C-alpha cells in the first residue's frame, strides 16, 4: 500500500533495534557474570575470566538436580508425544459424534490456571502412590495433552486425506499408512510437541516442589530458586553459571530439532 515498499521507515528500524537491545542485555549480563569468578552483579566486561563458577554449579546437589530435571523433561515429552499422537490421529480422521465439543471442552479446561487444579491432582497422586518424579511426569502429561492433541490434530489434518486414500488404493494397511505417510509428513509437528513439552517440564516449578518432597529429588528449577534465596550475600557468579547450565539443554534440544521445527512453526502459523 506504499508507493515505495522497498525502503523501510528509519524510525521503525530504530525501534526494532532498541527492542533487540533490551532483549539481549539480560543475556550479556548472564555471560559476563558467569565467566567472572569475581562477579559482582554489574553489566560490564568481566574483571577476570575463569571456570570456577561453572565448576561449582556442576558439582554436588546441582548435578543431581540436573539429572532429575532431565528425567522429568524427557519423560514428560515422550509420554505426551505417544499419547497425544494416538488420540490426535483418531480425532483428525474419525467422525466421532461430538468430536468438536470434546475438543473444545478440553481446550476450555486447559485454559484454567494449572495451579487451580493442583490441589485435586496432588491428592489423586497421593492416593495413587506416585507422589514422586514419576507422578510429576504423569501430571504434566495430563496437563499437556489438550494442546498437544490440538496441535498434532492440526498437523494430521494438513496431511490430505487423498494421500491416505491413494496409499489405501495401492494396498497399504492403516499401520503402513501411518508409518510411511502420516508420521513422516507430520515430523515437524511431532518435533514441536516434543520440544515444547520438554522445555515446559524442564521449567516446571510448582509440581516438583509439591510432589517431590525430598531434596534429592528436586530438579534444577527449584535449585535455582533456592540458590537465589540463600542467606547472606548473593553469589552472582554462581547464580549466573547455574542459570546458563540450566538453560543449556533446552537450547541443545532446540538445535537438534531445529531443522524439523522450522516447518513446524510454519504449521502453527509462523512463516519466518
Amino acid at each position, binding site marked *: 500500500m506504499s508507493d515505495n515498499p522497498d525502503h523501510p521507515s528509519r524510525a521503525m528500524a530504530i525501534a526494532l533495534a532498541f527492542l533487540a537491545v533490551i532483549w539481549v542485555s539480560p543475556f550479556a549480563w548472564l555471560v559476563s557474570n558467569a565467566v567472572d569468578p569475581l562477579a559482582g552483579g554489574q553489566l560490564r566486561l568481566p574483571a577476570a575470566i575463569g571456570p570456577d563458577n561453572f565448576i561449582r554449579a556442576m558439582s554436588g546437589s546441582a548435578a543431581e538436580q540436573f539429572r532429575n530435571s532431565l528425567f522429568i523433561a524427557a519423560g514428560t515429552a515422550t509420554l505426551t508425544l505417544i499419547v497425544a499422537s494416538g488420540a490426535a490421529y483418531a480425532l483428525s480422521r474419525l467422525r466421532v459424534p461430538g468430536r468438536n465439543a470434546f475438543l473444545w471442552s478440553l481446550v476450555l479446561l486447559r485454559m484454567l490456571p494449572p495451579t487451580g487444579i493442583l490441589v485435586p491432582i496432588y491428592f489423586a497422586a497421593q492416593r495413587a502412590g506416585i507422589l514422586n518424579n514419576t507422578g510429576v511426569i504423569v501430571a504434566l502429561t495430563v496437563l499437556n495433552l489438550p494442546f498437544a492433541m490440538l496441535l498434532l490434530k492440526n498437523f494430521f489434518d494438513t496431511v*490430505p486425506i487423498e494421500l491416505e*486414500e*491413494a*496409499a489405501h*488404493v*495401492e*494396498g*497399504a494397511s492403516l499401520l503402513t499408512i501411518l508409518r510411511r505417510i502420516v508420521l513422516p509428513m507430520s515430523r515437524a509437528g511431532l518435533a514441536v510437541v516434543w520440544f515444547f513439552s520438554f522445555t515446559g517440564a524442564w521449567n516446571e516449578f510448582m509440581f516438583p516442589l509439591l510432589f517431590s518432597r525430598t531434596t534429592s529429588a528436586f530438579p534444577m528449577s527449584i535449585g535455582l530458586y533456592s540458590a537465589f534465596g540463600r542467606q547472606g550475600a548473593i553469589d552472582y557468579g554462581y547464580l549466573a553459571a547455574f542459570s546458563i547450565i540450566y538453560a543449556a539443554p533446552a537450547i541443545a534440544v532446540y538445535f537438534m530439532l531445529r531443522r524439523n521445527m522450522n516447518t513446524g512453526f510454519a504449521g502453527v502459523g509462523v512463516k519466518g
Partner: protein
Amino acid sequence: MADLELRGVEKSFGGMTVINGVDLSVGDGEFVVFVGPSGCGKSTLLRMIAGLEHITGGEIAIGGRVVNRLSAPERGIAMVFQSYALYPHMSVRQNMSFGLELQRRPKAEIARKVQNAADILQLGPYLDRMPKALSGGQRQRVAIGRAIVREPEVFLFDEPLSNLDAALRGQTRLEIARLHARLGATMIYVTHDQTEAMTLADRIVVLNAGRIEQVGTPLELYRKPVNAFVAGFIGGQTMNFLPLTDGALPLAREGASVELGAQAVMLGIRPEHLRLAPQPEADLLGRVDVIEEFGEFSLLHLELVSASHAGAGSQPRLITVKVERPVAAGETVGLTIERDHIHAFDASGRVLAA
C-alpha cells in the same frame, strides 16, 4: 484389462440420495467420461467404483466379479486424483514404486516397470526429484505414472486436468488420449468440462442430480441430445432456446412459422446453425448487442426485434449466432434457421422425435 458393470447403483448419506439407481456397462478397453455440473454425483460415483465410498444399493462388477464387498486394493483399479495426491516426502521414483513395494515385488521388476512408465511419460530426467520441484504438468504425469506401473484392470481419473492452465490442459488432454490408444486399458474419467468429455471419450455419460441423463458417443450427444439439459450442456457455444406458441415459432415474415407439433414448447438451435440472411428472406431479425471476435469467427449476441419475439414488456430475448464475417454493433441483421438442426423440446424438457 476388464469390463465394468454398474447395476442399479445407489448411494445415500443420512437420508439424502446422491446417486439414484445408475445402470451402465463399460466395455473392455473403452474410454468413458462422466460429465456433469458440480454436485451431480460424478465424483462420488467414481469413488464408489474405486471402493472409497460405500455402496448403499445395487452392484458393481469389474471383469465379471462383483466387487461390492471388496476393499479398494482388491478391485484391481488405479486412481489418478484431482490433487495428484503425490507423497510429498518421497521422490518421483519412490512415489511410483510405492505400490509395487507394498506388493513385495522383486526390486528388479519394480525398477523395470518404473523405468518403462517413465519412458512412456517422458519422466526419465525427473525420477530423483521431489514432487515440489516439479511443475503442475509434470506432477500430473507422475500421478499417471504411479497408476501405470501397477498395470490395473481399470484406470480411474478424477478431474485430472482441473489444476492446469488452459494451454497445458490442451496438451495433457492429447497425452491422455495417446496413452489410452497405447495401453488399450479401460478408463473412466470424471470432468465438469464438456470439451474434455467431447475430445477424450469413446462414450460420454452425462450426469445430473445423481441420475444419468444420456449415454452416447460425443457426436450422438452433440447431434441428438435427448433433453434440454444435455442440449444446453454439450457444445462449444451454448444452445439458443426459443419458446414456442402453440407448438410453432412465428417467423419475421408475416404469417410464416416453424411448426414443431402440439407437444413442443421450446425450440433449440445452436449458434453455429443460424445463418446471416438478407432481411426479406430472414426467419428472425435481431439487433447486434455485443460482438465477440475470435479471429476465425465471431459470436454475435443479438436482441430479437421481430415483433412476435420481443417479449411484451419483459426482458429482451437474446440469441447468439456464430458468423464468419464481422457485423457492426447496433446493426439489425436477418437470420435463417437451418431446419435440419432444429431440436424440439416438450414441457418436461424431453426431445421430441424430429
